[in-house]
């Protein structure tokens, strides 16, 4: 009997899981259906470069269906809700699809309307986000004509996709204004709800130092309560205000809307709780979660979706065979952090181990937590690997799912983790 896996979401996680599953089974054994509301697959790491004229928004978007192997059906349709009891997905057009296994890969959704004033006056003229192709494109226009003043980069609250991206934006802005010869006319401020530049202590210290070296002011524990676009200021819940001439805001994130409409599937932010090692959802044994949609203590990042995808595929195969699941996902994330001026640093971490200095993936490799030209080149050269190796489900040379420790300088007395 042919069994059916339905994958909700044709982004990084959903695409690579569908492609890997297709390769593991013969056509008659398993049907793979991918559902997405649109046919625009965005190479999201490229969004960071768009505002600075280093990438074109049109070049980082490709059709979703074309990234899927032959033999996978792609349904372009919204999802109304999942009926977990009956194992049925109800689609927006009133049709429904039954499943033996469901993969929730519907990512994170931007919620700019949840912050009072953010999408009011000034939105997309003085207040921008670079987390969408449209926003990043519009911001490119605004930066090109920006001749000086206060640039405020703000993260409203976590979780967000790619938590290092707003920092990278600051570094690239510093580099950009320097290149244009007007750096001294621009004040750059990074306002974060965290109590440091980043979540993990060693990396936070490194990144905090880099901010101060670049003359970027760091404002911590700033929980944006309101954006006043006409008065050009951000106000935090504790009453502090930040005046700006140009604001770049990373809005609140939540999971897909259908998660909220599916009884028993998601949490209060519409993300889907799952076992952090097996990625089986807490909602039902035949439901798995990959990528940003998951409520697990890992970063919302493409690398995490990539590494988690391997565990999800293995566990779907085992689930269908009635075998015990593997607990192989270790929370591994691997992020190139652009630091401007043609350099980048690399951080590599998992559930247990925070980002450390050293080399990746072993003693011979890219420097970790240290700026280098090689890391910048690796980041810029990653895009072809993304389309041609990662999404099709081929193994990327030198990049394994489990976090490597060989090249890392682990502190002798590991500091107590908070």
């Amino acid at each position, binding site marked *: 009997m042919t069994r059916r896996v339905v994958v909700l979401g044709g982004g990084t996680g959903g695409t690579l899981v569908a492609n890997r599953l297709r390769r593991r089974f013969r056509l008659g054994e398993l049907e793979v259906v991918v559902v997405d509301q649109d046919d625009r697959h965005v190479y999201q790491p490229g969004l960071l470069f768009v505002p600075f004229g280093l990438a074109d928004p049109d070049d980082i978007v490709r059709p979703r269906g074309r990234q899927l192997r032959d033999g996978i059906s792609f349904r372009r349709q919204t999802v109304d809700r999942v009926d977990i009891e009956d194992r049925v997905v109800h689609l927006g057009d009133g049709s429904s699809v039954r499943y033996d296994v469901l993969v929730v890969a519907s990512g994170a959704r931007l919620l700019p309307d949840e912050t009072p004033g953010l999408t009011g006056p000034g939105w997309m003229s003085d207040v921008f986000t670079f987390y969408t192709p449209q926003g990043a494109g519009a911001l490119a226009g605004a930066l090109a004509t920006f001749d000086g003043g206060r640039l405020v980069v703000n993260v409203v609250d976590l979780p967000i996709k790619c938590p290092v991206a707003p920092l990278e934006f600051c570094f690239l802005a510093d580099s950009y204004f320097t290149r244009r010869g007007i750096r001294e006319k621009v004040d750059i401020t990074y306002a974060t709800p965290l109590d440091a530049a980043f979540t993990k202590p060693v990396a936070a210290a490194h990144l905090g130092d880099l901010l101060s070296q670049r003359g970027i002011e760091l404002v911590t524990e700033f929980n944006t*309560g309101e954006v006043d676009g006409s008065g050009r200021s951000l106000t935090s*819940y504790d009453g502090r205000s930040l005046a700006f001439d140009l604001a770049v805001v990373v809005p609140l994130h939540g999971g897909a809307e259908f998660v909220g409409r599916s009884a028993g599937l998601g949490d209060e932010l519409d993300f889907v709780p799952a076992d952090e090692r097996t990625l089986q959802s807490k909602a039902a044994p035949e439901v798995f979660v990959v990528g940003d949609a998951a409520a697990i203590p890992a970063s919302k990042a493409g690398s995490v979706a990539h590494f988690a995808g391997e565990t999800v595929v293995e566990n779907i195969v085992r689930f269908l065979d009635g075998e015990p699941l593997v607990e192989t996902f270790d929370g591994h994330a691997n992020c190139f952090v652009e630091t401007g001026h043609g350099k980048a640093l690399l951080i590599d971490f998992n559930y247990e181990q925070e980002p450390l200095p050293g080399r990746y993936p072993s003693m011979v490799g890219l420097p970790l937590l240290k700026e280098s030209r090689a890391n910048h080149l690796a980041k810029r050269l990653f895009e072809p690997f993304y389309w041609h190796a990662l999404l099709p489900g081929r193994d990327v040379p030198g990049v394994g799912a489990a976090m490597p420790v060989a090249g890392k300088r682990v502190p002798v007395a590991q500091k107590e983790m908070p």
Partner: protein
Amino acid sequence: MTTATLAAREVELNDEGFFVDPTSWSEEMVPELAQREGIDVLTDAHWTVIRFMRREFFEKGTGPTVRVLGKTSGVSVKELYQLFPKGPAKVAARIAGIPKPRGCI
């Protein structure tokens, strides 16, 4: 790590003032803990948040963030900041005797 005496009992706190062992906490310690945070008058709303924080921690393994608190505790984010002006998630976690909310990575 420091040792503090609260409600005549010795408890261990970490460098940031969070309980090392959440089970060593008791409700009698709350007024003293609140005072250490500059909160002299504890209202019912404070207690609602404190009890909610503990329940969430023992259910989910981490205390909620401000945003989740605002969505689920029945107390709005604005009100949370009025109750705990120095940052609801961290301050309420310290008073509720649970570790620093893990937040997000």
